[in-house]
């Protein structure tokens, strides 16, 4: 097990390195460097003395070769936790992002939970009662869930909630609570709002997982070991839960690895539509105004946390499936 953990963490290093390179490239993509933009911005509002400009130029290695810039950028993050400045807000990126990242991952994890709670029983039912009415219904809703892009679902739900239930839409709490301290009422209000993004983001994932669970289980249901268990005299429910479901669960768990990135992706786009105080709107805004250090930092951290989540899911899988551990 320890060997496996070491290997898995070792594999992560090149991934993390690649993530940082890609992020850096994205930061560099827009023409002109960041200080040009900053200088232009500040010269409008009274100008900036050349000393400060030079100091910043030196700090970020601007004008020097690419790899020097990359080195300065990445060491700044690694050793000083310095993600650079957001020129639009003129604040360190650090001061802006953590709150929003917290919400993004909070919602993503809750969505994961929601997906599991719905997909697992429905998938099992669908496989065991293959071609029953329930199976067809689950399959049909599964296909619909996969076919509706989540921003569209968000729009439709907001429309329905507003038009037919007169509910305030958008945001995670009602306007009067936004800056209020945390109270029980605010928490209840949060619950009233947060289910919508969770359902919206989770629908396609749940649809996908139902199909995966169904397929996995169908693969296992007719294996010889199931017949063995039946020949032992176990009841159908007992043997189903102890053998095929248990085996089919493993590939199911490994799907966390790819479902987490899609959840984070989905959360970002849904957040834009629903105007949630999470990473999405901030990232979109930063990209549109080319506030690249802010955008780059968000992309970097979101990606890294996802990679980390994948690692955790892999270790979890190794923990419950002995066959992986012993490889």
């Amino acid at each position: 097990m320890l060997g496996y953990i070491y290997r898995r963490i070792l594999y992560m290093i090149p991934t993390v390195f690649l993530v940082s390179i890609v992020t850096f490239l994205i930061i560099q993509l827009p023409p002109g460097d960041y200080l040009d933009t900053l200088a232009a911005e500040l010269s409008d509002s009274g100008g900036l003395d050349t000393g400060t400009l030079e100091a910043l130029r030196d700090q970020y290695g601007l004008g020097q070769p690419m790899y020097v810039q990359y080195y300065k950028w990445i060491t700044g993050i690694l050793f000083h936790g310095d993600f650079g400045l957001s020129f639009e807000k003129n604040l360190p990126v650090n001061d802006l992002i953590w709150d929003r990242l917290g919400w993004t991952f909070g919602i993503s994890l809750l969505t994961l939970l929601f997906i599991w709670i719905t997909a697992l029983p429905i998938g099992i039912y669908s496989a065991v009662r293959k071609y029953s009415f329930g199976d067809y219904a689950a399959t049909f809703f599964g296909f619909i869930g996969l076919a509706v892009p989540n921003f569209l679902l968000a729009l439709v739900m907001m429309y329905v909630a507003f038009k037919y239930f007169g509910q305030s839409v958008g945001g995670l709490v009602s306007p009067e609570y936004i800056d209020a301290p945390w109270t029980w009422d605010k928490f209840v209000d949060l619950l009233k709002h947060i289910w919508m993004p969770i359902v919206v983001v989770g629908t396609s994932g749940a649809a996908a997982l139902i199909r995966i669970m169904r397929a996995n289980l169908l693969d296992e249901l007719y294996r010889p070991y199931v017949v063995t268990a039946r020949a032992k005299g176990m009841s159908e429910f007992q043997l189903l839960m102890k053998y095929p479901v248990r085996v089919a669960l493993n590939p199911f768990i490994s799907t966390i690895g790819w479902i987490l990135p899609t959840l984070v992706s989905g959360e970002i786009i849904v957040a834009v539509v629903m105007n949630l105080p999470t990473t999405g709107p901030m990232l979109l805004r930063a990209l549109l105004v080319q506030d690249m250090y802010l955008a780059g930092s968000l992309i970097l951290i979101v990606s890294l946390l996802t990679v980390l989540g994948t690692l955790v899911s892999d270790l979890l899988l190794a923990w419950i499936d002995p066959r992986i551990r012993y490889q």
Partner: protein
Amino acid sequence: MPQIPMHTDPLVEIRDLRTHFFTDDGVVKAVEGVDLDVFANRTLCVLGESGCGKSIMARSILRIVDAPGRIVGGSITYRNADGRTIDLAKARNGSKELRAIRGQDIAMIFQEPMSSLGPIQKIGKQITETILLHRPMSKAAAKETAIEMLDKVGIPKPAERFEAYPFELSGGMRQRAMIAMALSCQPRLLIADEPTTALDVTTQAQILDLIAELKDEFQMGVMLITHDLGVVAEVAEDVAVMYMGKVVEKGDVYSIFEQPQHPYTRALLESVPRMGMTRRDRLPAIRGMVPHPLARPSGCTFRTRCDSFMPGVCDKTEPPMLPVGKSDVACFLHMEGTKHD
């Protein structure tokens, strides 16, 4: 010559059993009218080519035929220790009555020791599970029994192997573990479906010896499904030969081997290489191929490959099972009034 215990009632009496598979292409009559008796403390070998329905027949007894297969007729009468009988063919699937018989009275081991054990549960857990299912016992006692069984089937260091996963054991060891699991509740009948086919030759012999030994120890009946005449010669006391879902000949092993009556049994026995054959002797093989299961020949199903085919007789009606010598044979050659030559 072994004495045939005709005075004792059979453990399992199969009468006119028919198990069909309802596929998209048509109805496959995998088992089509099997009559068979299985006795306690005796080894019955069911012999036949692959696809002749012997496995399906065996699985029908425990009612573990997978869909789209279904028992469509006949009876499987099981007589339990108190002498009470139950028709397994008519028992409701998944009923408590049926489940109590599975694993406790009648146990089964399978061809593929690699895939017949749950892949991600420890061996020991799978065995204790069977015990706890049928015996009112504490977990610790069940564990003790399981380790005892592992020891009995010849697994070295049984206490350690108790904690092993199936993929950590060799094929032979897994089959031993399967046997340990099957025998953990001391069943009255053990059905072994080609238990040695997937194993290498030396392991095969060991496993067969083990089954024979345990049969004597537990006084249980054994039904061994095989296509291997060598296996039959080694362990069988009674033999039933199946062809296309029917028993064509049955009797004790000596009669079958020394005086085979059915042309199919004869052909099977002739196709085995013997010591003393020279290089120039050709090994006889049975003519042709087994007909497609969806195209059963009319009358006697073997007639398309039979050297003694009698037109107008064999293709008209099915031959009934009649005693010939010490065996029962289903062939018109042995019926008065139908013989041509």
